[in-house]
């Protein structure tokens, strides 16, 4: 993130402006990815008119960065009409897509409309692995063709590589493919529960040893010793800090008009079909509660050695049952990175262990320098 963009984000926070938003245009999809958290049936998507009206409200509220995602956005017949309207409102537009429906004509139109970037999900450089995850034969070939069309138009393409048990060994190859195609590369080692709460897909999460190996890979993390250093104890600044931008300067709208703090935070705050966007943003009791959370308020996390550097996701914590509680997926990542168990992991372990008369618990020494870590998603420009 550029310094200026960060400064603008901080200003938006002070002014109470929803600086960025993700709008999912549909949950329908032409791929059936094994790890997907969505229900792909159409339960009554917003119409073209409703979406255009919403976009006007979002522009008036101050939204600058607008991400269109899904489902597969190109399945909407009115996609370019919506995009054109959004650009007339001078949003900075980012797209998330599998790109299998993008050919020369679509790529040229995206260039003409001034789209900022297109993020495309690529799971492997090997066709059999990628296509097995998407469950669509030929999908990798079509996505790669689309990247070539987009790059030939001079567009910025980001290959997003979600890692799971099926493709954990392939990320070097995907990174090399991105380099070959002139695309940027980002990887994400987190599989999230389905929006209806079903956690069975979490079985696909890469195991601890695979994560440990990833976090020691200097091609992705830079100086591994620094990246994996034990965290410093939380100071007053980190205890008073905000968990993330969800609900503070960012929000998410579903294809049905439901308003959430973030795509990974399924706490409904209202519906834009019944209320104005700005009214939900300013007055929702749920958003006010999300905004009230600070690290010092979190039971367990506020005493945890990882408090100052943890990437704890409040949405994943909410899906675990308590938005003021821990996010175990992030505890596991902190452990894989440093070898130091979080307060939450120790508590879980103690619950699982039969009681004994004498229990000695090793508390690792806390040393090292403070690092800013964002391991939920590591980007390589």
């Amino acid at each position, binding site marked *: 993130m550029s310094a*200026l963009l960060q400064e603008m984000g901080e200003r938006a926070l002070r002014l109470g402006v929803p600086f960025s938003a993700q709008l999912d245009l549909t949950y329908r999809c032409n791929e059936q990815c094994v790890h997907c958290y969505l229900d792909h049936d159409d339960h009554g998507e917003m119409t073209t008119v409703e979406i255009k009206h919403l976009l006007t409200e979002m522009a008036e509220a101050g939204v*600058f960065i607008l991400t269109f995602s899904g489902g597969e956005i190109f399945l909407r017949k009115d996609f370019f009409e919506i995009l054109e309207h959004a650009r007339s409102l001078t949003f900075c537009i980012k797209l998330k897509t599998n790109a299998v429906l993008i050919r020369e004509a679509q790529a040229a139109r995206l260039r003409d409309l001034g789209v900022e970037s297109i993020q495309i999900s690529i799971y492997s450089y090997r066709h059999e692995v990628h296509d097995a995850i998407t469950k669509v034969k030929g999908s990798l070939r079509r996505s790669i063709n689309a990247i070539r069309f987009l790059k030939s138009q001079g567009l910025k393409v980001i290959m997003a590589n979600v890692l799971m048990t099926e493709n954990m060994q392939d990320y070097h190859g995907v990174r090399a493919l991105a380099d070959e195609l002139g695309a940027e590369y980002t990887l994400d080692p987190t599989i999230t529960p389905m929006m209806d709460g079903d956690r069975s897909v979490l079985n696909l999460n890469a195991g601890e040893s695979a994560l440990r190996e990833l976090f020691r890979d200097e091609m992705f993390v830079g100086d591994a010793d620094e990246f994996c250093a034990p965290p410093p104890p939380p100071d007053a600044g980190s205890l008073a800090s905000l968990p993330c931008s969800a609900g503070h300067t960012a929000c998410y709208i579903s294809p049905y008009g439901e308003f959430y703090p973030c795509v990974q935070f399924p706490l409904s705050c209202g519906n834009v079909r019944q209320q104005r966007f700005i009214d939900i943003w300013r007055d929702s009791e749920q958003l006010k509660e999300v905004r009230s959370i600070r690290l010092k308020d979190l039971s367990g996390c506020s005493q945890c050695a990882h408090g100052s550097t943890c990437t704890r996701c409040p949405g994943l914590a909410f899906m675990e049952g308590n938005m003021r509680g821990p996010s175990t997926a992030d505890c596991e990542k902190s452990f894989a990175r440093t070898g130091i168990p979080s307060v939450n992991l120790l508590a879980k372990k103690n619950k699982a262990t039969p009681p004994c008369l004498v229990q000695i618990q090793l508390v690792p020494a806390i040393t090292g320098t403070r690092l800013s870590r964002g391991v939920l998603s590591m980007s390589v420009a």
Partner: protein
Amino acid sequence: MEMNKKMYVARSPRIAARMLGEEMLVMSGHDSTLFTLNPTATILWQAADGATPLDEIVERRICTEFEVKPVDAMRDAEELAENLARHGILLISEQPIGKPDAPAQGRR
């Protein structure tokens, strides 16, 4: 630009823009570079419709809002316009500029 020739300015259709507080945030569609415009530059930006000459914008919108000599304001405005044009976020011409023209976004 030569003296006595009109300069017309228009917002590039490839940019993204939004008012944030008192400043305009503009992102170049060419290379995603971000800029912020101060209140004076924002007035010029919002008035850059491709049809109104720069000297009229300065006279009607800048000099009426700020205590500044017209000559100084015009020199600063030309410099700013040329600077923004170099980054591809403003179009400059000696003739009126027709479509495409991006709307001037403001937050109500």
